[in-house]
């Protein structure tokens, strides 16, 4: 135990003071700040892109269309029908597009002339002019049309998990954010664990350490230091998220209505204790599984330059887990989602995402956790074997046959 504490505390202090950790923490912090503040800063320019319009219509039609369009767009001017529409006209009226409106056989005909057709808010224009179209095709009064178009639509949740649409949207946004966090933390810190193992091996300090401390103690301490730093990073980032949340524009998922990082949101039903517990548990399971594999495999390399080539294939399950996790947030009942929520290395992402947005039977959660714990035990055995031998293996990297021999050899 003393060995473990010494190695753990020594490694922790080294890693906390290391440049990669500090840079990673700062970059993550900047990313979180950007995630919250950039939408607010950029929103006006993004939302208003292409919304300055010039109406081209005869006076009576223009008089009817203008108030409708002005509700959601900026009308910079009105010119009579037949006016030559070109870039100079748009420039003169400081408009992004000219909306030409004319009477047609079954209502009105609308043609939009835009400097940049991809930025035309045609949906908004269509919605704004809908009453005018109905009026011209049915000859009803404006009041009648307004009444007819004002359908009262209410969404009531039958889910036992969420009581409202807003709450479900908030949970989706939050789940998305947490899955992103999960992915970043697992990838970033597993790579750190891998680099630390490779550094000790390539600097030849490993032999000195192994002469003193049991290799398994070294491996476990290294992986747990990675987990500690991940939790530390998470706390910093979530803390910043909470601090910025109330004034922010929403989650990473861009859920406009929900503000899952607002203190109220966190304390409310959006982030239930089960979801928090699931996040922590699945984060730890995922991190421990992946970083242990990384550490074991890193012990086989002889040059830090080789890290990239071996980490590439090992990242694949993590990336797959991340994408299926994102899929699970939008479609938690898909068969692939259900199946992969039991597959170790993938399930930390997928099962957590399912739990965050849907009601998952308790037996499924229990089975997934049990399978993950079992897999972690197997991975620790596998990585321990590799690490014990790999740290003393210099020269050419071992072939697969040699790795197999290592795994079969007695401890």
């Amino acid at each position, binding site marked *: 135990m*003393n*060995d473990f504490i*010494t*190695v753990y505390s*020594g490694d922790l202090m*080294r890693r906390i003071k*290391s440049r990669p950790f500090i840079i990673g923490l700062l970059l993550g912090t900047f990313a979180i700040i950007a995630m919250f503040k950039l939408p607010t800063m950029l929103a006006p320019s993004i939302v208003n892109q292409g919304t300055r319009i010039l109406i081209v219509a005869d006076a009576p039609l223009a008089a009817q269309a203008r108030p409708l369009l002005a509700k959601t767009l900026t009308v910079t001017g009105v010119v009579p029908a037949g006016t030559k529409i070109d870039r100079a006209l748009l420039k003169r009226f400081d408009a992004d597009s000219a909306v030409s409106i004319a009477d047609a056989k079954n209502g009105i005909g609308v043609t939009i002339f835009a400097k940049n057709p991809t930025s035309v808010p045609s949906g908004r224009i269509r919605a704004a002019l809908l009453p005018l179209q109905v009026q011209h095709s049915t000859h009803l009064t404006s009041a009648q049309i307004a009444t007819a178009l004002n359908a009262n639509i209410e969404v009531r949740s039958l889910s036992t998990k969420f009581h409202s649409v807003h709450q479900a949207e908030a949970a989706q946004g939050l789940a998305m954010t947490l899955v992103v966090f999960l992915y970043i933390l697992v990838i970033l810190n597993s790579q750190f664990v891998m680099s630390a193992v490779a550094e*000790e091996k390539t*600097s*030849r*300090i*490993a*032999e*000195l*350490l*192994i*002469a*003193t*401390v*049991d290799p398994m103690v070294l491996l476990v301490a290294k992986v747990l230091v990675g987990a500690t730093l991940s939790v530390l990073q998470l706390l910093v980032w979530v803390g910043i998220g909470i601090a910025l949340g109330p004034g922010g524009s929403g989650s990473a998922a861009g859920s406009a209505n929900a503000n899952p990082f607002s203190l109220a949101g966190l304390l409310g039903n959006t982030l239930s204790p089960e979801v928090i517990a699931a996040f922590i548990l699945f984060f730890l399971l995922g991190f421990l599984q992946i970083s242990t594999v990384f550490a074991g495999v890193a012990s086989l390399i002889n040059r830090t330059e080789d890290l990239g080539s071996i980490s590439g294939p090992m990242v694949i399950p993590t990336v797959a887990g991340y994408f299926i996790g994102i899929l699970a947030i939008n479609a938690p009942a898909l068969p692939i989602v259900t199946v992969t929520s039991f597959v170790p290395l993938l399930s930390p992402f997928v099962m957590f995402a399912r739990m965050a947005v849907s009601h998952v039977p308790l037996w499924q959660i229990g089975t997934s956790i049990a399978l993950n714990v079992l897999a972690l035990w197997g991975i620790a055995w596998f990585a321990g074997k590799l690490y014990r031998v790999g740290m*003393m293996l210099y020269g050419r990297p071992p072939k697969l046959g*040699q790795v197999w*021999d290592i795994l079969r050899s*007695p401890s």
Partner: protein
Amino acid sequence: MLSVESIKKSFGSVEALRDVSFSIGAGSVFGLLGPNGSGKTTTMRIILNILNPDGGRVSWNGSAIDRSLRRRFGYLPEERGLYGKMAVREQIIYFGRLHGLHEPDAGKRADAWIERLEIGSYALRPAAELSKGNQQKVQIACAALHEPELLILDEPFSGLDPVNADILLAVLLDLKAKGTTLVLSSHQMWQLEQLCTAYCVINKGETRATGTLVELRSAWPTRIVRVGPDSPALRDAAGKLGATIAGSENGDLDLNVPANSDFAAMLRRFTEADSIVKFEVVEPSLHDIYLRAIGAAV
């Protein structure tokens, strides 16, 4: 006492150790000799339990070497390694703690070693900024801070300049005086002869010779008798005694004779044969014994 009994170790199809045996008395200094690739480092790693032997047994005072015993040992590997960004003092303390020392004591001992090894000006600097020789001194402090019962040093003198080699020699003699058992390998025979009380020569994974220098010499079948000045009468007398001429240098004649020869009688015969001013029985050096043990020409 350290006892190494018939240890064997293979790496895949390569037999690194076939049969290595020796024993070392407590408090002695033991030299492990052998050419590159002979199995010295593997033997050391097995003693330290870094590697498990495929066969044979290693024990310290009769007990198999386990984790708690290993904490009381020290090790300076051939391939040096330090945490490059960690400060020298911090590093020495860290390794002291790994060997069971507690912080205040480890700090005091680290300061004493830093002073002893004359690396005080680097104490707070990262190890990577030190020269190779100074890094080696830091490693020696890391290995010996906890006053180990057994200290294993793999090529401790390599990379050290003569001044630093003398410092290390003094440190090792000091440790010996305090009762630490030392096992060291080196290709510099003169340094080993200054330090070691017993030796083991390994070649191709096998023990070729083991014992004190006296024991190793006594097992040597011949001696060189240096007699001079060289003359035909002297050569004639040597031939009659059954000695073979090993060479002639600086006017003296080197004769190869059986180790159990009657040297007093031999001296009388030579003085009767000619006027001689030199008669010297040259004991085989460690270098000679080593070369013969590994099968190289002497």
